[in-house]
């Protein structure tokens, strides 16, 4: 298959499937609470409507207020393209692409913080400050997980890096990455994506003043990012590359769905953490990634 067709197909897959995940989470939450809940495709309808809407800009906002969401969205989608999908490999693969992935996500974070600072509001500045500060711990956790995979596989390219650990190491890494997934995607117990007021302390507060097509880009980018983390987590702990192609793809899809349901269940069964505990939980996530690193290291040598 020519490379550009491959890229276009992957792009379509990521762009079209990603908004499904928040829908699934909401459905799970509704189901646990005994409600009917919004349709699974609700985010698609929302995105289509936002795309048609006009934009209200703050009087303080510069052109960067519109460009920043576009940069953030592009960065997340490019990062997604770098990630291999089970047996099919990645669109591009080269030594050190994993770092590009981590830093593209950082670029998206920079742009979101930029957008928040544009409005000159205390509330959004607070969100930006929290996002960039907590991300320090989350990034340390991600890089530790990457180190574990590097030690395990002896490779520094994503396409050959996913050689899952066995037994306790894999379980610990799964827990660690799941905690980081919750933090980076601003889910309960770190943040509450349901409300728009004081309860939502980090991500939602940064995008309060966005509207119309830029908001659609932000929401879609957030969905892609959630899917990216779920795909990364699934491949880091499950031996998907050893299965036949079709089965591995199906297994990947199934495990992403499972992770999404797990996010929904966590959200239904736990409350948002007291704000001061957030760094503590993130540190625990980092430790859950550090132990498998030590385990792998000791096991190898």
């Amino acid at each position: 298959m020519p490379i550009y067709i491959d890229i276009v197909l992957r792009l379509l897959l990521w762009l079209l499937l990603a908004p499904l995940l928040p829908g699934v989470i909401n459905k799970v939450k509704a189901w646990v609470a005994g409600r009917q809940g919004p349709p699974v495709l609700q985010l698609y309808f929302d995105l289509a409507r936002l795309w048609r809407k006009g934009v209200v800009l703050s009087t303080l906002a510069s052109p960067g207020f519109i460009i920043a969401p576009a940069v953030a969205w592009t960065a997340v989608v490019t990062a997604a393209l770098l990630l291999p999908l089970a047996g099919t490999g990645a669109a591009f693969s080269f030594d050190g692409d994993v770092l590009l992935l981590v830093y593209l996500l950082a670029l998206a974070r920079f742009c979101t913080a930029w957008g928040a600072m544009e409005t000159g509001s205390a509330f959004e500045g607070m969100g930006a400050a929290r996002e960039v500060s907590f991300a320090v711990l989350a990034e340390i956790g991600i890089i530790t997980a990457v180190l574990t995979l590097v030690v395990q596989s002896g490779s520094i390219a994503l396409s050959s890096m996913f050689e899952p650990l066995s037994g306790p190491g894999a379980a610990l890494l799964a827990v660690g990455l799941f905690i980081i997934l919750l933090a980076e995607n601003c889910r309960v117990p770190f943040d509450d994506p349901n409300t728009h007021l004081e309860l939502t302390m980090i991500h939602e507060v940064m995008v309060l003043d966005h509207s119309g097509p830029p908001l659609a880009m932000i929401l879609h980018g957030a969905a892609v990012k959630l899917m990216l983390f779920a795909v990364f987590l699934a491949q880091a702990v499950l031996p998907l590359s050893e299965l036949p192609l079709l089965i591995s793809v199906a297994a990947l899809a199934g495990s992403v769905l499972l992770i999404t349901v797990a996010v929904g269940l966590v959200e239904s069964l736990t409350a948002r953490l007291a704000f001061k505990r957030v760094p503590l939980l993130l540190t625990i996530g980092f430790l859950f990634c550090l132990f498998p690193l030590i385990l792998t290291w000791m096991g190898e040598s």
Partner: protein
Amino acid sequence: MIAATLTLCGLGLILAAGVARTMPRIWLGLTVWAALCGLYAALTILLTGEAWLWRGGFALGGEIPFLRLDGISALFLVLVCVVGGLGAVYAHEYWSEHHHPRSAPRGRCWWSLLTLSMGLVLTCANGLHFLFAWEAFALSAYFLITLENDRVEVRKAGWLYLAASHAGTMALFAFFSAMAARTGTWELGPVHDQTVLAPLFWLALAGFGVKAGMFPLHIWLPSAHAGAPSHVSAMMSAVAIKMGVYGIVRFSGWMPMPESAGWAMLAIGCLSALLGIAFALAQSDIKRLLAYCSVENIGIILIALGLSVLAVQHERPEWGKAALAGVFLHVLNHCLFKSLLFFGAGSVLHATGTRDMSRLGGLWRTMPWTAALFAVGAVAVSGLPPLNGFVGEWAIYQGLLRAVAQKEAAAGALPAVIVLAGSGALALAAFAKAVGIVFLGAPRSKPAATASECGWLMYVPMLLLACVIVAIGLLPGLFFRPIMGVVAVWAPQWAAVDPLLATRTLGGVHTIFACVLLAGGFLIVRRIRTTGTRRNLTWDCGYAAPSAHMQYTSGSFAGIARGWFAWLLRPEIMIRRVRGHFPDQAMVLERIPETVLEKIVTPSARVAGFVADGAGKLQHGRLHLYILYVFLGVTALGFMILLGGV
């Protein structure tokens, strides 16, 4: 050809120093011309890979002059020429005759001398002449830092710089003379076979490390960089501290290394990277923030250099070369984005008269060029793709990750990767804060509201730097070729090994990213044109009348991370709370001390001074007591001889 251009360059600078006081335009022309000549010579050497050597036929101070320009010194010469030329253009408007009639002529003269002496530091291959050039460089930098010598804090910063710099030079005197004594010649060159020289590297590390600003020898750096005029800060931060890096790089390539040198550099690098950026994040003075960020970047360079030294000991070119390429690329990158950022900070200072971020804000409206270019620099310095900062850190990470993958040097490489990731994320926080507080939102003071954009002489140098930053990001393959030549000069034994850095693919992905971004940006702007926009007050969950004072400030933005590092930063916060029914004005004052200087160096200097005072009391001028000293001394000697049986 190279000899001719270098002579032209040197002559141009000497002439420029001569005419600096009276003819500013001719000075500018000569300086730019000299910079171009030097740049031509340096680029020729980088592209052809052949070193240029010249030995004089006469003695100077008892030694025959010996000049050498090879790949490593040519790379650093590029930095000197780029900032030397662009800074001169920038200063022509920023530090103009009109605004600074007394200090501007002096500043031009010292600028030429500083550029010249740094060029000599890079070319001198004779230890004695190197020391002369080094001293001339240190002194001219001192006079540039103290251009505004009517301000007390500038004079203090200048003295601190001078004292620290000379403490370092003392170590270098010891280093070079010990080298000359052991090798029998002052001429510098590879001495790998003389393993007895290895311990001397610690002297070089200390002496050059002071100049490089590595933690904890960085004490002079923040106040000197913040107090100097901004073009001088750019020169200091982007180039002058690199002279220290040059020394460490040069001698770690030439000398036999002590067993633990690689580990020590890795550890110092980690310390500098993490603590430097923690200090940076907590600052509310924009130039101090940039200065501390330099400490972080020197740390990153040292991490990579330490790893390269370990790679030499392990004989592992496959990760050593990647790390080394990262060292040299990051040296170049840091020069580009740090001078851009200091120029940007200078424009802000020029327009508003303040460096305090808590009094700025919303400057994008009145200073769009500065805001956009500073933002490019901020993205680059945070190591974000698709700009140059990421490319350099990517190479360094690859060196570290390959060492990890081969399960070697793990005790160093594993923590270094984690530190690098953490300091990268903190750098992002620091620069999201700098850009957000200074350029976005609403103006926090009157000068910020009425600022005006700098003239073209100030933003064109910034624009040129930004173009190179983008070019390295999008075409890393083009820039890696000469860098690999420099690597081959440092480690000739690895010349045949391919480091397998996928720079072309990386450049391709960066280019695709940039194209998609352009297309996406175009799409969304067109979309918004059709759907229409309205302007209104910031909504923010329904504030009716938001005010500029309600915005997050620099202190509150850094609050969380500052809390994590409170054990080190020891912020001094003074609060006057709102009290009673008719309260006075409330306020919060916050100061982040330079902990190493104020809590360690100053107290120990006080103790040393106390001891010295006590010893000074022994010398009082009373003859009969001196006779008593002599008598006591002779008696003590007599006892020693009697009891020791000598």
